[in-house]
């Protein structure tokens, strides 16, 4: 009898685990609807402009160039990926560079958090429900500015993940 109860409990836990895996999968899938200019906090929800954030990379040692032309920037324990087939890359003049307001890497999580809270609160007011926070970094649009002497390049990137 006790064994049967244990088996039933185990079965229930496995079902719940499978449900959670599917839920995370669909949450990720819905976030794939996001594009370079907008994000959504739920499927068919309102498109919200992604705040643009500039960060500076002035080192050549913390980037990884892949064979397909993609580049991964590892800056202060965060990774940003430039995808050569989908992202834009252009050169900047010194004058353009000087006009940019850079953010520190440590600020990114809080900028992302504040943007989520603002949008989620608006949805709560208008729709009566609070969407779950994104499980990936799909809210901010990050541009990495790579500066090597007077050679300045702006890379559109995806904020991939954090390392601790």
């Amino acid at each position, binding site marked *: 009898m006790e064994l049967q109860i244990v088996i039933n409990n185990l079965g229930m836990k496995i079902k719940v685990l499978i449900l959670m895996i599917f839920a995370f999968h669909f949450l990720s899938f819905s976030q794939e609807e996001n594009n370079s200019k907008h994000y959504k906090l*739920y499927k068919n929800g309102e498109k919200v402009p992604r705040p643009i954030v500039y960060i500076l990379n002035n080192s050549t040692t913390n980037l990884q160039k892949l064979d397909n032309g993609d580049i991964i920037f590892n800056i202060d324990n965060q990774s940003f990926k430039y995808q050569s087939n989908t992202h834009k890359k252009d050169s900047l003049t010194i004058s353009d560079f000087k006009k940019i307001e850079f953010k520190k890497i440590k600020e990114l999580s*809080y900028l*992302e958090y504040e943007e989520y809270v603002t949008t989620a609160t608006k949805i709560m007011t208008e729709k009566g*429900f609070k969407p*779950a*926070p994104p499980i990936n970094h799909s809210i901010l649009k990050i541009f990495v500015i790579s500066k090597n002497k007077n050679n300045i390049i702006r890379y559109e990137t995806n904020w991939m993940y954090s390392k601790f």
Partner: protein
Amino acid sequence: MTQAEQIAYVNSLRTNFPGIYDYYIERYKPTWNHNQMASHYRGTIADILQEFDDFAKPRQVYEDLSWVGLRILEDGVTSIAWDSLTQSEKDNVLSNFNTYFFNGTSNCN
């Protein structure tokens, strides 16, 4: 996920994974994931350390070492779970950090 799917998803978290729900939904902030791990997954981390170390030390050592990455979070602030310890408990953990983590023997090359 649609609005209805998100509501079902959050309700499912609340019912089946209250620890995740608590930090991911109710107390969401940039350090939610490590705060949640500090509160609910230190036992699992201790299990892994213990097994990796062939159960060579008392259980308390592994439980104390499970705090290594979960005491001070990426924003430089101590985790919610750490703040709930008594000073005596904190002192014991830090003592084991010094004995086994910072000054322990190492066979790594």
